């Protein structure tokens, strides 16, 4: 008897301990209020409120410091080795503005030869590196060649030669016309030749709006305003980027008032509701999410990576069409993402090279008709269709730890099962596990960039079935290939738009949902951030995929409202 009593005691105690520790958190939201609101007042206090070092304590009239709860801290800042933060510390010849127009940066003006192969840039003369030396044509030549000869992700293989005609004139010759070259050049940042060495990545010197003050690997980095920036010094004088790689930590940091702005997701924002003292900053993006559907039937093929290829369900165009038309995208946005998303119909909705005809209407009857006509019928009354003994059933993988993709996958699966009779088995997988499965199993993938090159990688057959995530579905279409080649080799960006659009839908075929629908686009994410009241993040370029770096691309325009 005594045993039982003591055992009961243990149980009660365990419950009591849990209740004590966790029950208290019930008060979290109510107890927080006074603390948070006092923090929110623009007092000029930038350091964490709980720390003793009261940051010299002098109340500044205008707050000019900022703490960003960031996802990751770069390992280095060398722009010639694909270093991050290029746009903050460095300048490039040209830049793309919020409306995707090419605008001057280091180059005041430029000319393109008639054959689209020779680009001549004229440098401005007032741009200085932060060591005080002017930016010269030789620095540009050096930077381009370092990238071309190095191991980086910036693809300059199209460039034949780069030469300095004089101190302020650069001539870049291409091997063949390349319509997107200006967009690529906008991401080539210029480093000073005379300071470039092996340590440059941790001691970067650039001509951008900020300079690096301090770097603590994997913990934080601090930027200070470059007062000599040719376009005017930024309003934020000191910006701390602090690493918070988990969504939970970022939320905790905002809730305890220790960051000025930090990333969040639709799932968290909807679940948490409000963070006192903060507002939810919502930015539009082309960060689209969709399902890559294996394009071919499973004929036992094993690819060069030893993985099976093809899927007997999604290899049937009727199934892909049914998923395209029979999924209510707005409902996914509302269900899974609490409205923090909009329906997506292509990889580049809203971009100048996007075909307006990509948009389709939700049409459940049409979707069912596709399936019925193709012979997908629910024979055994279990609610799931089948055809020739093949059940309309497939697994849908998403990257573990991405709760947004998880929610989208489940919302899609629910609709497909209830409305279309297609069974989708949602499963998470570690990045590593995709190598063996992604050529035969549908995956939730996300893309979106401000460069139409993405469409080329996604759909050109030269890239089909490779292990770089672009085209695991093995999509090939000769007509699309030729449009994409014409688009890429057009003499100018404007000239290429027509071909990009035709690749998406030319009235007969294309990559879009009206065409082959190898990639069923579902939603465009809205990028969400907790921002402290009073923080103005300026007008942002429509965000590309990934919500960290696109946010701070215009950091030089940020300011605190009075």
């Amino acid at each position, binding site marked *: *008897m*005594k*045993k*039982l009593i003591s*055992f009961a005691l*243990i*149980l009660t105690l*365990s*419950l009591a301990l*849990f*209740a004590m520790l*966790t*029950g208290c*958190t*019930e008060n*979290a*939201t109510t107890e927080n209020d006074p603390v948070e609101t006092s923090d929110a007042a623009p007092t000029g206090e930038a350091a964490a409120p709980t720390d003793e070092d009261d940051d010299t304590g002098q109340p500044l009239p205008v707050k000019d410091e900022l703490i960003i709860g960031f996802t990751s801290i770069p390992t280095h800042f060398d722009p010639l080795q694909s270093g991050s933060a290029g746009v903050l510390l460095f300048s490039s010849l040209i830049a793309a503005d919020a409306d995707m127009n090419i605008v001057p940066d280091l180059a005041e003006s430029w000319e393109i030869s008639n054959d689209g192969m020779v680009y001549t840039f004229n440098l401005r003369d007032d741009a200085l590196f932060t060591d005080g030396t002017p930016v010269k044509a030789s620095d540009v030549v050096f930077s381009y060649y370092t990238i071309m000869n190095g191991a980086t992700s910036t693809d300059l293989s199209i460039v034949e030669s780069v030469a300095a005609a004089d101190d302020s004139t650069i001539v870049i010759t291409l091997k063949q016309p390349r319509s997107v070259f200006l967009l690529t050049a906008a991401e080539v940042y210029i480093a000073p030749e005379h300071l470039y060495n092996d340590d440059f990545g941790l001691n970067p010197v650039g001509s951008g709006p900020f300079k690096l003050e301090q770097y603590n690997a994997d913990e934080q980095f601090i930027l200070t305003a470059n007062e000599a920036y040719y376009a005017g010094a930024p309003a934020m004088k000191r910006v701390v980027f602090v690493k918070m790689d988990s*969504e*939970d930590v970022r*939320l*905790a940091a905002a*809730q305890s008032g220790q960051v000025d702005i930090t990333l969040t997701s639709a*799932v*968290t924002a*909807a*679940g*948490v*509701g409000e963070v006192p003292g903060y507002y939810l900053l919502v930015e539009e993006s082309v960060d689209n999410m969709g399902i890559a559907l294996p394009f071919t039937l499973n004929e036992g093929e094993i690819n060069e990576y030893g993985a099976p290829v093809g899927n007997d369900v999604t290899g049937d165009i009727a199934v892909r069409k049914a998923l395209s038309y029979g999924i209510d995208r707005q409902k996914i946005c509302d*269900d*899974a993402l609490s409205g923090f998303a909009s329906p997506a119909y292509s990889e580049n909705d809203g971009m100048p090279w996007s075909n307006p005809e990509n948009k389709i209407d939700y049409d459940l009857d049409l979707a069912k008709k596709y399936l019925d006509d193709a012979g997908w019928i629910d024979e055994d009354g279990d609610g799931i269709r089948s055809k020739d003994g093949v059940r309309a059933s497939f697994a849908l993988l998403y990257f*573990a*730890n991405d*709760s947004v993709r*998880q*929610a989208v996958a*489940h*919302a899609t699966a*629910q609709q497909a099962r209830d409305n279309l009779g297609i069974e989708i088995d*949602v*499963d*998470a*997988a*570690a990045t*590593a*596990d995709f190598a063996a499965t992604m050529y035969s199993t549908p995956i939730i993938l996300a893309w979106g960039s401000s460069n139409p090159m993405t469409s080329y990688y996604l759909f050109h057959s030269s890239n089909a079935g490779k292990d770089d995530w672009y085209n695991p579905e093995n999509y090939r279409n000769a007509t699309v290939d030729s449009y994409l080649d014409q688009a890429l080799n057009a003499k100018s960006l404007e000239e290429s738009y027509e071909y990009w659009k035709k690749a998406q839908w030319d009235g007969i075929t294309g990559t879009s949902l009206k065409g082959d629908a190898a990639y069923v686009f579902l939603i465009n994410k809205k990028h969400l951030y907790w921002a402290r009241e009073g923080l103005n993040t300026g007008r942002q370029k429509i965000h590309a995929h990934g919500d960290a770096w696109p946010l701070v691309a215009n950091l030089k325009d940020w300011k605190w409202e009075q």
Partner: protein
Amino acid sequence: MKMKVLPAEKRPNRRAMIGIVCVLIFLILITLYIVGASMNELLFEPDFSQKLLPPTMKHPFGTDFLGRDMFARTIKGLSLSMFIGATASGAAAVIALIVGIVAALGKTWLDHFLNWVIDLTMGIPHTVLLILIAIATGRGITGLIIGISLTHWTGIARIIRGEVLQIRSRRYITASRKLGKSRLWVAVRHILPHMIPQFFIGLVLQFPHAIMHESGLTFLGYGMPPETPAIGIILSESMRYLSAGMWWLAFFPGAALAIVVLLIDKLGESLKLALDPASAQE
């Protein structure tokens, strides 16, 4: 963590009580396991119209961000944890038993070697070794079971080996050897039977450790995939909602795990008293 020995006059009664406690706990656990293992997955399907609800009669543990019923998910998770814990600690106990028997053979070099292997296993921090094995086996239930059993056999092995060394020096063993019986014969006929209680006690005592390591590893992202209703996943998902005041998402699954661990621990202690009264009086 031995139980305090009660006064002598209560002992006979006490043995019976211990037996009842063992059976009772065992029944509770096995029921929990069967309910969880046979549970229809539709019971915790996502339902977006039921997102993040507080506990009600319909959802005693509330629902999560996909509208899944947390009660069903927790029960399922517990049965999964119990399966992994039982399989892994069972495998660990078998390894330990084999090692113990080999030690009983009395070959010095073999004993030295096994000791070296034990030291090797104990020398790599369990968490690190578990991550290594998880990486090698590609994460998931198999990896967890292999990892936990490979890291948890040493504790039992040491106890069994110590016991073997003690028994080996007893007279009847020496006599048996003198009578010309082979080492193996002696090991199997005389020593093995003595190891059986140790085997079961070790198995049950490792069980809670196995479960805690399972959930911890899953929390670190090297355990089970997030779609699995595992307690480690449920708890790590609950973290962000905890600060938003949704304590129930973390409280009930956490308390349920702690209770199961306590129950198994209790079972182990009781088993130890019931099967091996000698050790209880040390």
